[in-house]
């Protein structure tokens, strides 16, 4: 149903060329001169409801994870009351926005994509500073945001045509898709541009109105997304930014006039949203729908016939890229015992070559984790491990929230590191008897997000493709970096509701199908 054939991913910046790196560093220096960004002051659209949804409850201050003394942005912090006001505004705007022609809404998304394309270096620099994303990942975040806008614009247009039904003489049957109402978008900090853009674009493109709460750590990135949409012609009331912590998020989830909740974040937060959304609030006349993308404990299976020259770098990239702070990141390696010693030795040596440093330094493989809380949590896991790490990489001295990239080998199977989502640069490697045993381990866990397989046997690849329970299986490659239109992203079990962002079915979560059957017989004649 999507016009996939004509879709092309936004090209990544070619950072291997010196001139491109120099451009990026200039954009970063330019952005630095504007810091701290005052969210209420940097807005473009005159009618942006940014400062006025803040109730004066306080301020959110985002800082550079690699240098917490550097303040990136200051945003007004919204209260529950402000969230309620925003929903009321969005509900009032729904009639007008949903009545617009689908092509008009698609054009807004496409214009927003164009605006982000024009500002892509600046946006990438913002993700570098506010989320501590190394350049290639920050750039990929911008590209993915652009991809979502383009892909869902095309998808929404396609959806407008409805679906064909069986037609009999004397009746005319149609199936059309309609927007649901107000959509609350609650987004994480780890893809501070791409993930909110995707959720918002899907909701807006299909005719819903949106109240968007970015993660408290990345308000400036969240603001940049809304700014682009407003500048592209989305009415201020149709997409509103609500910076804040838990309070406004909870208020959004509980609000009787919210129809859809699009959430990406932790399992605990996701499950509490599912619970809260299930209980109708007074005055609520619909069942809320929750689209949740949650955590994972992603495994990479390495069979005895794997090519370790390929497997080791891919595992390292999957586990330690962006300091492991991706829901798709690799947490466990399940390696065939015949090659376990060799793999572990090479993996350990490869981990030791990792360079941890400022995200803005092109020489850094990974940077600091997002904040103090994350730092403490991840260090707690490492310190409580039953065995000493097999390998670590050095971290810089200084103020950043740096966590030592750490590899554990053969931890007891009941270890916290083996079973819980650490969401940091920590990898554990366990040996298994064969692929069957590895699959049994994957099945025994609660998650089903991403997974990897290294094997050169077509039969093994086929077996794991069919038996694997993960939403995204990657064979003989890294398990992160899903591309819009190419690797629709998301998994089931406790990893989420399996919405498959960037795939042909994603928009269906934001709409309701209605069918009309009309009797076309008049006076015994089919007219």
């Amino acid at each position, binding site marked *: 149903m999507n016009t996939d054939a004509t879709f092309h991913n936004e090209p*990544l910046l*070619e950072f*291997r060329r010196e001139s491109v790196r120099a451009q990026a560093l200039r954009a970063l220096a330019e952005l630095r001169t504007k810091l701290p960004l005052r969210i209420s002051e940097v807005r473009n659209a005159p009618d942006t409801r940014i400062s006025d949804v803040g109730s004066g409850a306080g301020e959110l201050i985002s800082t550079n994870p690699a240098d917490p003394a550097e303040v990136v942005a200051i945003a007004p912090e919204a209260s529950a009351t402000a969230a309620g006001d925003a929903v009321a505004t969005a509900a009032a705007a729904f009639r007008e926005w949903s009545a617009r022609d689908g092509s008009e809404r698609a054009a807004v998304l496409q214009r927003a994509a164009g605006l982000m394309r024009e500002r892509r270096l600046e946006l990438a620099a913002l993700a570098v500073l506010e989320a501590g994303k190394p*350049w290639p990942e920050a750039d990929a975040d911008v590209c993915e945001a652009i991809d979502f806008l383009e892909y869902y614009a095309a998808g929404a247009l396609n959806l407008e045509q409805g679906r064909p039904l069986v037609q009999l003489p004397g009746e005319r049957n149609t199936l059309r898709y309609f927007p649901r109402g107000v959509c609350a978008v609650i987004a994480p900090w780890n893809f501070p541009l791409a993930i909110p853009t995707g959720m918002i674009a899907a909701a807006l493109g299909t005719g819903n109105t949106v109240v968007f709460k970015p993660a408290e750590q990345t308000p400036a990135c969240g603001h940049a997304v809304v700014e682009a949409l407003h500048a592209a012609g989305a009415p201020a009331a149709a997409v509103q930014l609500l910076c804040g912590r838990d309070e406004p998020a909870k208020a959004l989830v509980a609000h009787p006039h919210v129809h859809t909740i699009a959430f990406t974040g932790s399992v605990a937060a996701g499950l509490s949203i599912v619970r809260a959304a299930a209980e109708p609030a007074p005055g609520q006349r619909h069942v809320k729908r929750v689209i949740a993308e949650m955590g994972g404990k992603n495994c990479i299976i390495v069979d*005895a016939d*794997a090519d370790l*020259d390929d497997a080791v770098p891919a595992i390292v990239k999957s586990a330690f890229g962006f300091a492991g702070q991706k829901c798709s990141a690799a947490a466990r390696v399940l390696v065939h015992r015949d090659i376990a010693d060799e793999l572990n030795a090479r993996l350990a040596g490869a981990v030791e070559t990792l*360079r941890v440093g400022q995200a803005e330094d*092109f*020489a850094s493989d990974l940077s600091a984790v997002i904040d103090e809380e994350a730092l403490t949590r991840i260090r707690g896991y490492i310190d409580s491990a039953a065995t000493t790490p097999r390998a670590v990489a050095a971290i810089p001295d200084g103020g950043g929230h740096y966590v030592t990239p750490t590899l554990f080998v053969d931890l007891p199977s009941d270890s916290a590191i083996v079973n819980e989502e650490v969401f940091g640069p920590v990898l554990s490697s366990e040996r298994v008897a064969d692929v069957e045993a590895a699959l049994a381990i994957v099945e025994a866990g609660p998650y089903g997000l991403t997974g990897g397989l290294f094997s050169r046997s077509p039969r093994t690849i086929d077996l794991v493709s069919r038996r694997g329970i993960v939403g995204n299986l990657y064979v003989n490659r890294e398990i992160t970096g899903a591309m819009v239109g190419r690797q629709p992203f998301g998994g089931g079990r406790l990893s989420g509701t399996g919405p498959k962002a960037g795939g042909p079915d994603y928009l269906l979560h934001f709409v309701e199908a209605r069918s009309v059957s009309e009797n076309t017989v008049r006076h015994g004649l089919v007219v």
Partner: protein
Amino acid sequence: MMQAVIGDPRLRAALFRFVDVRPACTNSAELVRHLHEYLAEADGSGTARRLSSLVGRRSLRLPTASVAALGVSAMSRRFIAGADATAARPELASLWQRRCCATVDLLGEATLTDAEGNVYAERCADTLRVLSEASSEWPARPLLEHDGLGPLPRANLSVKVSALTPHLRANAPRRITEGARERLLTLLRLARDLDAHLHVDMESLDSREGITELVLELLSLPEFERGPSAGIVLQAYLTDSEEELDRLLVWMRNNPRSSPFSIRLVKGAYWDHEVVAAIQNGWPAPVFTDRRSCDRHYEDLTRRLLDARAAGTPVRPAIASHNLRSLAHALAYSDHLGLPESALELQVLRGLGDDTATAIAAAGRRVRVYSPVGDLVAGMAYLVRRLLENTSNDSFLAAQTSGADLDVLLEKP
């Protein structure tokens, strides 16, 4: 068999996958299982189907495995001169006897750790010592030992920077230069002390900037002013290789070393990789995508190199190709410029250009055979790449073996 493989892409894919997995199979049952699976996937290929049903027969499993394993070993011997430098000594001596010189390349698995970088550097050092010692016994071969610019070392090693360091980061050439500096420095000193030639290979575009910076930086050091004899590689398939050549020539003029610098001109061996990476990332391809433009560019660069030499730049041009037209063009242009015959070196790969090497040597011109050394496991990536090259539709060699008309083969690109 080669003809059947060239003509049948599915069979070709199946066989390459088999060659690729061969070292990872620890027993014959594993070997047969993989072969069977690859052939079964190559549906649509009649030959593959027939082979697949043969391989599937229980009674034939063991013999099939032995034959398949043997086939791979025999193939590898054609391309690989020996398991290490010592084992390759007779081959290299016999080559010298036949008036061909060599450069040795050490095959290995990817370097993913610093320990592996050290092992590779140690192998390089050992190889330099063995080559230096072995070659001292060889008879005099004036054409192979001097050009107009001075003596040419008998011992000649090609090194890969990506094997010297695990810090290969496309976006940070500094990581490459820092990671490989100490080890390359040690090898350059050893080569200088042993009077050997050290040639730095070029690999994928991801590492070009780092490798070039490192080589030029080190060779600019005062301690290397008088040696060793050293060189780098220029890849003609890169559309910007003209500017890269300029950079090298400018450096040579600004850093007059008494030891001349050698530039090996190749077409480039990572074409598929460069094109696929560019498509997947949405970049313009950094390489020529049609063969004729690439061949034309190769000839342009050949002329520029020889022009520079004729104009007095102390550069040693080495034209490395299996395309007879490219080789003939270089010879003719060199003669046209009135350069001495010894000024131009031609290079071919062991196993692919053996006949060409013999013919060049018989014509009294200098030819160097790029001779990989290493064990089968380590050599697999190299072997697969050579086989792909040899059987691709665009391959000069494939066209030559299939009996294409000489006029067509030598057509102006």
